[in-house]
């Protein structure tokens, strides 16, 4: 562990850090544009200049690695002057059109200019401009005038997405980051949206979020992406009970700095036209009390063997616990259906996306709600007279139900708890409008058993209620005596089960990795 001195503060930092990261550990911020911890070093922007004893010239902090006894200064007159000069250089051709620019408010260029720049420019000539007509695909908007040539985009697509779709074109003053659209290389990769955060200025912004609102108007709720079993950590940025965008939240154990574009853009179902407006009994609008009483009554009528609960793996762990308790009170079985050929560990691409398109398969497994192959037969054979169907809107459950679609729709006492309309909710005897993930509190267990908290961003839309509250009311209506009245009580009750599963999965994954390594050797 090298001992270094930064701005007179002696400290011991980990081996192999560069000066930016080392300074970060003691709370000193060194401004930078081209450096990103996930990308290779290029030393391109020169914003990170520091003084390094006894070298007479300034050094770039991003490409200088700590050595024992280093003496670093980040706030001398020389450094401050250099930063001012670099900011002036970077802004020579920059249009400074912050009022129109979507990045304003979360722009590194803006922030660093405020903090380290000098507020005026001596450049009087014409600024260079580019055509705005070059298409960059469906997800991003490129305004090359604003680019500061940090090459983060080039390195991101080359190193992280592993699809070389960006390159330099022209030289010097006229350098342009240009998308390559030949040989099947396109900017519309599954991860292009990450350029929204990665580009330090407004040169690459997200089409989906463009001009919707300003970032400072948005509240940020920490949550977890529900669209696959990876469980990427996200911020839900919302305003007035509406999601405006999803951003990645750094978690080195799960998603590092990135999320995929599905997680980023596919949140429309939370506000879609097809959200279930209110509780219904036999197709007619009803109030919550009637609907819950009717549903609880139906669940008790046909006897344990003709009753079943079918639950998608988008339920939180806490809801799953209530499902289990409800099933125990009814004496019936609670299951999910086997989705055709889905293993929660299976990757769909090289980075994050997994084949299992549900958030909580592992959590349900820990609580014993597992796929029941016999259930499909029972459903198609008409043996089930009462079914509580939870969240058939989930793609995976919908796919699993494909074969028995008509049989399920014909079940006389079908109770559907879901957030969006489906064929099932239209055919159901009782419909209970539930919440989407952004409207829920709880935990998801991701593919490797990591239990992650989701936070409620806003209250359920319209007359909908949280699934936890609905299931609690149903279980109480069915006569179960339930001690856990909140999601926190429920979590405390299942924590041990979840931890056990995490340890188990860890072991499984290690065994798998070992086997794979051996297979490779052989």
């Amino acid at each position: 562990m090298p001992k270094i001195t930064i701005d007179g503060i002696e400290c011991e930092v980990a081996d192999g850090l560069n000066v930016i990261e080392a300074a970060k550990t003691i709370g000193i911020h060194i401004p930078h544009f081209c450096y990103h911890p996930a990308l290779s070093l290029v030393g391109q922007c020169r914003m990170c200049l520091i003084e390094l004893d006894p070298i007479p010239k300034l050094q770039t902090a991003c490409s200088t690695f700590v050595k024992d006894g280093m003496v670093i200064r980040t706030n001398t007159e020389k450094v401050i002057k250099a930063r001012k000069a670099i900011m002036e250089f970077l802004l020579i051709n920059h249009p400074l059109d912050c009022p129109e620019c979507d990045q304003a408010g979360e722009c590194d260029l803006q922030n660093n200019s405020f903090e380290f720049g000098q507020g005026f420019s001596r450049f009087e000539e014409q600024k260079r401009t580019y055509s705005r007509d070059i298409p960059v695909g469906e997800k991003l908007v490129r305004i090359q005038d604003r680019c500061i040539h940090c090459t983060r985009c080039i390195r991101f697509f080359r190193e992280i997405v592993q699809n070389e779709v960006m390159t330099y074109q022209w030289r010097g003053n006229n350098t342009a980051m240009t998308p390559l659209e030949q040989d099947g290389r396109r900017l519309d990769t599954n991860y292009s949206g990450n350029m929204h955060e990665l580009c330090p200025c407004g040169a690459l912004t997200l089409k989906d979020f463009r001009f919707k609102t300003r970032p400072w108007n948005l509240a940020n709720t920490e949550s977890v992406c529900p669209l696959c079993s990876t469980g990427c950590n996200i911020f839900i940025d919302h305003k007035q009970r509406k999601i405006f965008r999803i951003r990645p939240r750094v978690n080195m154990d799960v998603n590092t700095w990135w999320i995929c574009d599905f997680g980023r853009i596919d949140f429309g179902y939370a506000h879609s036209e097809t959200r279930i407006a209110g509780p219904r009994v036999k197709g007619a609008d009803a109030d919550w009390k009637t609907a819950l009483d009717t549903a609880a009554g139906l669940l008790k009528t046909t006897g344990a063997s003709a009753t079943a609960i079918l639950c998608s793996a988008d339920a939180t762990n806490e809801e799953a616990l209530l499902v289990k308790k409800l099933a125990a009170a009814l004496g019936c079985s609670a299951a999910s259906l086997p989705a055709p050929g889905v293993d929660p560990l299976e990757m769909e691409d090289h980075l994050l996306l997994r084949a299992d398109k549900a958030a909580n398969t592992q959590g349900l497994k820990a609580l014993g709600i597992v796929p029941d192959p016999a259930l499909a037969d029972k459903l198609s054979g008409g043996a089930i007279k009462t079914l509580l169907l939870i969240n058939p809107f989930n793609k995976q459950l919908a796919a699993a139900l494909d074969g028995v679609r008509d049989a399920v729709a014909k079940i006389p006492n079908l109770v559907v708890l879901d957030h969006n309309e489906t064929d099932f909710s239209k055919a159901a005897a009782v419909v209970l409008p539930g919440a989407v993930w952004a409207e829920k509190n709880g935990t998801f267990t991701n593919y490797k058993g990591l239990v992650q908290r989701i936070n409620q961003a806003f209250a359920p839309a319209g007359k909908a209620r949280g699934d936890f509250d609905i299931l609690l009311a149903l279980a109480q209506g069915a006569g179960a005596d339930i001690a856990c009245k909140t999601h926190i009580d429920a979590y405390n009750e299942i924590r041990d089960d979840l931890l056990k599963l995490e340890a188990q999965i860890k072991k499984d994954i290690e065994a798998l990795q070992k086997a794979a390594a051996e297979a490779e050797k052989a």
Partner: protein
Amino acid sequence: MAIIVKKPAPLTFWERIYLPAILKGLGMTMRHMIKTLAGGGVTIRYPEQHKRVPNNYRALHVMPTWEDGHIKCVACEMCSTVCPANAITVHAEEDENPEIEKRAAFYEIDELRCIFCGFCEEVCPRDAIHLTKNYEFVTDNREGFLYGMDRLTKTGRLVSELEAKENKDR
């Protein structure tokens, strides 16, 4: 934390008998009375007469446009952010002209909420919102005070009407 309260200095003899202050006040009343009787009245017979207000008076807003009628506002939301009364609502949209890029799709000021501080005018980077000296915009319903883009681009005309009135009265 202790708070130190400064006691005011004790009143002098003349202050305690109040007479000088009362005489001073009476004098002012007399002066105005004589002035009014002599014809140089201080009362303005509004609305028949209009007071000339200074040019930097802050009242109803106007949204200037370019010569071709295109709105100057680029919907940067600075004004709605700075507004202490939360009186401004802005929604942006893409402009067909890529050079302009962005413009307001919806812009509304609730003049009943507005406290006429002028911050919106001061903060606007595109010189796209001004406060005029037109203080004559009362109506008898709340909707009448919601000024959308369509009305705000035209309120400039009212200023010249007001000035004409001012000049007529003098």
